[in-house]
């Protein structure tokens, strides 16, 4: 595959422990630049823990410990000296439930910029507009930018969170079930957005919705019981998976 040339981030024998429990076992997985990779697997398989390792979100849970490495542009980001704020600017995250701040639409998007020290108002305003456009939300909110973000619908709130993540111009966007709390129309908008965003960003998405994984991703990785079972092109994985566990999971014959 072309992965070798264009890999932007990869894990090397990554293991993750929550106290005594080992959630991930020696996972080595490369991610191609400007591609969408879907992580699938049953609940508790480790896919979200893996995703959260890619920008050190697991640090926020006490008692976690990692082994192995996550290499982003030649640096192991698991090292203590890494500045996680700047790391999370470059590797942004969108969560399952839309979580806008109880502030205005504008301030939600501007927040990351201000935190990162950008004070020039016209730069901030331009970036807010650009991000909302990229998140396909601009047309819906341009006349009420200073209204509370919590007044938006669930689907709009999620696109706002995507705009917020995009505002700081990350290189990688991690998405943890970004559409699972949304209705089918809002879900479709998010999926279209993912397909547009991959022109510029590398996207890694965790999803329980297999059709969604099949529709939006170039590569799919199947996790089971903390292990990476199979990774391959999405087309191949959904038509002719190599491993029996993958076949059983995606055809619903599990357990």
């Amino acid at each position: 595959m072309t992965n070798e040339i264009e890999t932007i981030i990869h894990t090397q024998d990554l293991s993750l422990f929550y106290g005594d429990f080992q959630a991930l076992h020696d996972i080595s997985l490369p991610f191609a630049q400007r591609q969408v990779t879907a992580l699938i697997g049953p609940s508790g398989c480790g896919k979200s823990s893996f995703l959260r390792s890619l920008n050190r979100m697991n640090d926020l849970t006490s008692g976690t410990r990692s082994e192995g490495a996550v290499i982003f542009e030649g640096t192991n980001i698991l090292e203590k000296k890494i500045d996680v704020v700047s790391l999370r600017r470059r590797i942004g995250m969108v969560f399952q439930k839309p979580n806008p701040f109880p502030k205005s639409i504008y301030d939600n998007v501007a927040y990351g910029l201000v935190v990162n020290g950008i004070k020039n108002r016209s730069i901030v305003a331009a970036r807010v507009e650009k991000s909302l456009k990229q998140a396909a939300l601009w047309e819906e909110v341009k006349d009420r930018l200073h209204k509370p973000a919590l007044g938006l619908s669930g689907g709009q709130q999620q696109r706002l969170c995507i705009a917020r993540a995009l505002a700081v111009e990350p290189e990688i966007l991690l998405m943890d079930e970004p559409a699972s709390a949304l209705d089918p129309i809002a879900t479709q908008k998010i999926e279209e957005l993912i397909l547009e965003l991959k022109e510029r960003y590398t996207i890694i998405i965790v999803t329980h919705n297999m059709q969604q994984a099949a529709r939006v991703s170039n590569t799919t990785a199947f996790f089971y019981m903390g292990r990476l079972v199979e990774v391959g092109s999405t087309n191949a994985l959904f038509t002719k998976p190599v491993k029996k566990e993958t076949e059983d999971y995606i055809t619903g014959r599990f357990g």
Partner: protein
Amino acid sequence: MTIHLQRELETIRRMLLSLGALTEDRFRQAIHALNDLDVELATEIIEKDQEIDLKEVQIEEECLKVLALHQPVASDLRSLVVVIKINNDLERIADLAANIAMRVKTLAKKASPSGFTYDYRPMAEKAALMLKMSLDSFVHDDDAMAETVRLMDREVNAMRNAAYESIKKAISQTPHRAGYLMNLFLVSRHLERMADHATNIAEEVIYMRRGEIIRHTDFMDE
């Protein structure tokens, strides 16, 4: 939900096998009609073709329903797609049996007791065997048998070429019999097409088993 899908797939599979049995039967009848120039049997074959057309449509509708409702993946998806394609091949084979029946009616009218005829029995038997084996390979998920069917297709093509040479010579010797002889040649064309559809079925079985599309992967004898 998955048990539901398995049940639907099993129903569709049974429908297809019943269509397969009917098509094989129709093919056998066409061979009988051809061997005996039996006009009555030929007429019956032509009239009954609609029955197969209806079954084909029913199977396709079931498949579309399952695709829409279950969105199957992996082996479920492959087996459903394969059913859709085999369904189409079977309908075409039955059509060709009806075409042979039409040739039989013309040949019976124009045959002369002392005139040229061509013994299609070996070719017809070979093509019928290919159909049987391709359906068996589907039933037993047997890609080795399916490979054998692909090889047999070359023999049938060679038989068609032999019929062509032989009938071409007859036309040059008895040009006033050209109409009859061209109908006689068309039979070989129909049989050869039936063998092609049996080959398609075999290739679809190989796809179902291995997930590889092997069509067009070797040279065509056509």
